[in-house]
């Protein structure tokens, strides 16, 4: 019989080990909290650089939001209206979504419902690689390849325009729509599929009648995140949209977006000047828009999980 060697041995771990461990837990906690600090930091630093502009006579918030006149460096007639830039951003985003949403969701449905495991694996890898292409490379593609194609096919004088930016942004947003959309479809319980198939539905009927309604909030979140990415994209639109402050009348008009304006002008604006502050103000505007979109998308996704 194996006899017990003795009653309880007190723990031999030294006080130091325990102390170090407690300290380490606090470091971990701090790292978790750091995400909040960074977001607050972003808002604080961007807003604090922009804020003094509110006390300047040549700036009014109404003009900022509702005027199309953007003459930030004019000597005689300084105007800080970003409406044209907002419209520029929206037009490119809208076009890109018109292209990316059907293709992205279609690809998500194919990957999730129609293809075999091998093909699925390879498609997901390709989509992941697509998402990894740097935005400046996308911009370069817009600037060179897409520009030539658009000039040849549409006969437009200048191939850098809404259409070019829209197509490039669409290609950039598709991966995020596909991966989030596929997650949403995967989240639909298999029992739904089995029930559908048991009733004799084809896979197409299953997708159309059962899966799309069941996954619609998740797909909405996918679209929202795609929109978020498109609005925030900088380098690609800077290089591909032609860079003219302009409310576009057609697909082949050049425009300029909020992000591209900051990227193009911040380098030349003297630190602390009104122009510099207005550019930070544009940053605040962008931060607010994407913040709202991200929160909404998160609420939508959280809503699904709760179900």
């Amino acid at each position: 019989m194996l006899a017990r060697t003795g009653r309880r041995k007190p723990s031999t771990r030294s006080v130091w080990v325990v102390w170090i461990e407690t300290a380490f837990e606090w470091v971990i906690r701090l790292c978790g909290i750091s995400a909040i600090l960074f977001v607050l930091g972003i808002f604080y630093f961007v807003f604090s650089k922009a804020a003094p502009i509110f006390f300047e006579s040549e700036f009014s918030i109404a003009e900022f939001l509702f005027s199309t006149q953007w003459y930030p460096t004019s000597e005689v007639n300084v105007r800080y209206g970003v409406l044209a830039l907002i419209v520029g951003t929206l037009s490119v985003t809208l076009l890109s979504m018109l292209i990316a949403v059907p293709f992205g969701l279609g690809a998500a449905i194919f990957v999730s419902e129609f293809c075999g495991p091998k093909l699925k694996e390879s498609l997901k890898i390709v989509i992941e690689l697509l998402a990894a292409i740097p935005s400046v490379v996308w911009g370069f593609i817009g600037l060179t390849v897409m520009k030539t194609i658009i000039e040849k096919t549409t006969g437009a004088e200048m191939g850098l325009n809404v259409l070019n930016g829209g197509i490039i942004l669409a290609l950039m947003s598709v991966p995020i729509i596909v991966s989030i959309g596929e997650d949403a479809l995967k989240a639909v319980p298999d029992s739904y599929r089995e029930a559908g198939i048991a009733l004799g539905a084809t896979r197409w009927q299953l997708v159309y009648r059962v899966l799309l309604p069941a996954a619609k909030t998740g797909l909405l979140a996918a679209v929202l995140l795609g929109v978020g990415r498109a609005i925030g994209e900088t380098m690609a639109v800077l290089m591909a949209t032609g860079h003219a402050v302009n409310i576009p009348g057609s697909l082949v008009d050049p425009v300029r977006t909020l992000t591209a304006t900051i990227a193009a002008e911040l380098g030349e604006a003297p630190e602390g000047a009104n122009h510099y502050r207005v550019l930070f103000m544009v940053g605040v505007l962008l931060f607010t828009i994407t913040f709202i979109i991200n929160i909404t998308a998160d609420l939508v996704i959280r809503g699904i999980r709760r179900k």
Partner: protein
Amino acid sequence: MVTSDGNRAAACQANAPAAVRNKIEIRDLRLSYGKKEVLHGVSFDIHENEILGVIGPAQSGKTSMLRCLNRTIDFTADATWTGSINVDGEEVGRMRNVYELRRKIGMVAPLPVGLPMSIYDNVAFAPRCSGMKSKSELDGLVEKCLTQAALWDEVKERLDSLGTKLSGGQQQRLTIARALSHQPEVLCLDEFSIAIDPVTTMRIEDVLKELKSEMTIILVTNLVQQARRLAARTLFLWEGEIVELGSTESMFGPNPKDKRTFDYVNGIFG
């Protein structure tokens, strides 16, 4: 219905032989997950060096009770409990060093869990966590625990292979070896036999009979006959309340105190 008075009476009666010492005393233990109460004021004692069988249908609060005992309930975010659990005269709820408590109470979960490390490391894990470093001491302990768990002969040639690659029954014995590795005074087994074959079950039951001389064993089981084979006293828990606690003999006899005990033990419900 059983009132807490009834519980106390049952507890007192079972205490009748004066020589036994109470290892654990539980008084009016209430546990809730969120707003849902799953244990409605449970009181009983566990004697030193006995095997206490705990029977009852699924969802009757058996596992939850064990998790209060070693305070791993702390890891469940929305769980709250009140009442008193006393181990060796120390109040569990007020203990600051819960790790010491958990080392005092060995716990074997329903499903076998071989940790994704070598068999040796599986058993040496707990002693290492509490600071044991000496190789020879560890070697001795690993051999002792694996032998106690009736696994040594099967694995002594391959202590370096992964614990997760053992068969289900072997993994369950590995889990028991791990629970023994921190030299507990109380061993809790939570439905240890649901994932393993009858032969292995019998081997482990033999092991438990031997271990009884060294430690207190709480055997939660869904097989009422297992309690009958091993336990001196049995507790019947149903929907978070104690229906009956008494000597196994009387509970499995023709006239238990409560009609429901008779029905459950004889398979009329549950």
